């Protein structure tokens, strides 16, 4: 199992991260429930995290993995405030359908 890094080229990880990121982008455009849209953003963040880890391991440099820590902290802060905002919105207008949340639209 240790030899996996010798048989998997870095390209595969790049491709996998690209696929996951694109699925996240698709989900953001696909769904109307604001919570699912938020989850797709998390999916994109995770694709980037995985790519950073892969580069970090293949280069033998710990910086990439430290960056993943920072991204996780930022994601946690983002989720905390974002979900609080969503719950607030729901309490005020009783929906989280993004087609209804168009008050700021020009």
């Amino acid at each position, binding site marked *: *199992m240790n*030899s*996996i*890094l*010798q*048989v998997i*080229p*870095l*390209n*595969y990880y*790049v491709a996998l991260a*690209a*696929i*996951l*990121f*694109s*699925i*996240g982008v*698709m*989900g953001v*455009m*696909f*769904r*109307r*429930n604001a*919570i*699912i849209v938020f*989850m*797709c953003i*998390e*999916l994109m963040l*995770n694709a980037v995290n995985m790519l950073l*880890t*892969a580069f970090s*391991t*293949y280069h*033998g440099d*710990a*910086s990439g*993995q*430290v960056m*993943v*820590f*920072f991204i*996780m*902290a*930022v994601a*946690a*802060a*983002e*989720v*905390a*405030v974002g*979900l*609080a905002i969503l*719950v*607030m919105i729901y309490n005020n207008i009783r929906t*989280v*359908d993004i*087609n209804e949340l168009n008050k700021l639209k020009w």
Partner: protein
Amino acid sequence: MNPSLPFFVLATLSVFSALMVVLSRKPVHSVLYLIFCFFTIGGHYLLLNAQFLFAVHIIVYAGAIMVLFLFTLMFINMNKELEPHKSNLLKGAATIAAGCLLLVLVAATKGAETLPAISKTSDIGTVSNLGKALYGQYLLPFELISILLLTAMVGAVMLGKKDVE
């Protein structure tokens, strides 16, 4: 056993569960599929020799963040099983747009040089090595993270607390 088998199994599961996050009609199923997807990504971390990152990923994402999502979903979509969906035209447009993005990303990275396979002694994923990098080179960002968390706390309390008097 083919040594690249774990990677392909995990990659297939990741892509499948990520697709199901987008395509499943019930929001709760989406959350559960996303949790599964995070576990498979954690498996990739293990394959990449980043054990501490695996543990942190499971604790923070699967353990905390997704529970929060599930919580919010229970809070908001309590009795609505099915949500309204976008029109098929918009769905098709979204799929095509995402496919184009994927095409561009893959095409852009296809010609890149591959890194040579690494030596066996890659123990940078251990806790102590990460700590040395985190508290050496990245000390300032680390301290700034505490300010970010402080801000998030204040924001969450401001938004979530009903004004009591």
